């Protein structure tokens, strides 16, 4: 009786509590240690790029909501930004400010989910509940301004759908005033926890060179010490008018990636405060024809979404429908390095690493 060793294969997902959606990783394990990891996305592929080809320019907007459904505002923005670039539309100042406000709110909301889900990934469910509690406030704000909580479809080519409703600014300020205490709570419950630190510090360190080479973006890139935030590096919209800092990590481990998001939330709150203070009066929509019909051409535009660089590539053939729309989804590109990151870590670390990248499967699978 001669037995041969069989590789211990474990299908992490597609249905698994910690893959943040339907995502599958085929792990080859030695005991609990990951020897090889093959990420298999695509379970949520809806062909949004294909769908967009048969929609008008405006009709694509609701689909972009469904990319990163945790920060739908930013996805809207990325798309309309590209179309505006294609059409050379001037966006009124007030609209830009409103975009900044809702965009940064969306960033906070997205990071809150990332933070809480990360706490849940490493086993502390209470942190998750806390962040969701505070995210509700932002969702309420979104509901006020756009009528929807998760998928706002708020932005339009050339501006935004509606002006700021009454009471929004007060409520927003109220939230911003409350938010630091919430951050303190997260820091006390999650960040400062020794177990949490032991779980995340020095796990899956990404060097700055490697991060740039693998085109990582967003907090994942910045945690490795690369100061690359489009809001600063190539300021779009009105970001050059705000005084904020880009937090940068030092080590590039899971803890840095996690903690960076907390710091970014702080900065986002600062930006929102500035934007609310500076908010000008004026129209909310630029001069855009009712039927959008750009001349043939192409445009590629990038914004900094909560997960990283969200690029949109629009090709127009002169008709009312875009000829080709491509979304450069940050989570998707960030995931390209996952297999390398997982190697040599334990299953529990694999969860922590995946959580630290903060993916949204709607975005990965498009």
């Amino acid at each position, binding site marked *: 009786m001669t037995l041969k060793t069989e590789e211990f294969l474990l299908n992490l997902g597609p249905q698994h509590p910690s893959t943040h959606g339907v995502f599958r990783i085929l792990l080859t394990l030695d005991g609990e240690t990951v020897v090889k990891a093959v990420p298999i996305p695509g379970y949520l592929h809806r062909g949004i790029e294909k769908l967009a080809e048969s*929609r*008008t320019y*405006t*009709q*694509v*907007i*609701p*689909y972009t*909501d469904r990319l990163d459904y945790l920060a739908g505002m930013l996805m809207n923005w990325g798309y309309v930004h590209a179309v505006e670039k294609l059409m050379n539309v001037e966006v009124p100042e007030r609209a830009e400010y409103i975009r900044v406000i809702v965009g940064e709110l969306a960033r906070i909301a997205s990071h809150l989910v990332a933070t809480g889900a990360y706490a849940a990934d490493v086993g502390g469910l*209470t942190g998750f509940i806390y962040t969701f*509690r505070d995210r*509700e406030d932002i969702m309420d704000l979104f*509901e*006020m*301004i*756009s*009528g*929807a909580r998760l*998928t706002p*479809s708020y932005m339009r080519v050339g501006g935004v*759908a*509606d002006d700021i*409703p009454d009471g929004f600014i007060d409520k927003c300020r109220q939230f911003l005033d409350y938010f630091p205490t919430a951050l303190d*709570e997260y820091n*006390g*419950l999650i960040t*400062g*926890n*020794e*177990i*949490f*630190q032991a779980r995340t510090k020095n796990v899956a360190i990404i060097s700055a060179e490697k991060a740039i080479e693998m085109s990582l973006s967003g907090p994942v890139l910045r945690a490795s010490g690369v100061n690359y935030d489009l809001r600063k590096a190539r300021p779009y919209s009105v970001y050059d008018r705000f005084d904020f800092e880009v937090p940068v990590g030092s080590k590039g481990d899971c803890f840095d990636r996690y903690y960076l998001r907390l710091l970014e939330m702080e900065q986002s709150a600062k930006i929102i405060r500035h934007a609310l203070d500076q908010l000008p009066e004026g129209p909310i929509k630029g001069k855009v024809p009712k039927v959008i019909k750009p001349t043939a051409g192409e445009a590629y535009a990038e914004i900094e979404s909560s997960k990283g660089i969200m690029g949109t590539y629009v090709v127009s053939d002169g008709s009312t429908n875009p000829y080709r729309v491509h979304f450069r989804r940050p989570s998707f590109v960030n995931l390209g390095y996952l297999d390398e990151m997982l190697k040599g870590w334990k299953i529990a670390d694999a969860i922590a690493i995946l959580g630290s990248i903060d993916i949204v499967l709607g975005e990965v699978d498009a």
Partner: protein
Amino acid sequence: MQVKGKGLLKGLGITLKRFFKPKVTVQYPEQRLPLPDRFYGKPEFYYDKCIACNMCVNACPNKVIKLETEAVDKKKVVTRYDFDQQYCLFCGLCQEACPKDAIKFSKDFELTQYNRPDIKIKFVKPEQVEQRKEEIRKAAAEKAAAEAAKAAQEAALKPETADKEGT
């Protein structure tokens, strides 16, 4: 070396403090949060306002709305306005596109149904159509009558008008 366990104790402190603080739970069916005005809930269709311009149908990204018209006496009568709610993205583009505010979203968000066919909302009821048709016909008839009357009047003033048309 920092003191181990400080963070652990702090965490315990936070949860214990929360233990005694007020809760955020909303007892949903009994208690409801106020909804903002812009909320996209159940779609509502105002039959009377609709001019069957097809703007909403064209605006809809997901082709949710089925609008059928019947030309009654050259006027379009909406015979069917089906809203296939299960595919609706609740983006509000139809509402935005509608020039007459005929389609609107209410604040009713409890949209679940027990049967799948029930999700599809058929806004236009046959009697409404009939009534409408009736109205149009009546109007047409009235109009025809009026026109006839007018024609009769005009006939009297014919030369002037003919002149105008001629110019």
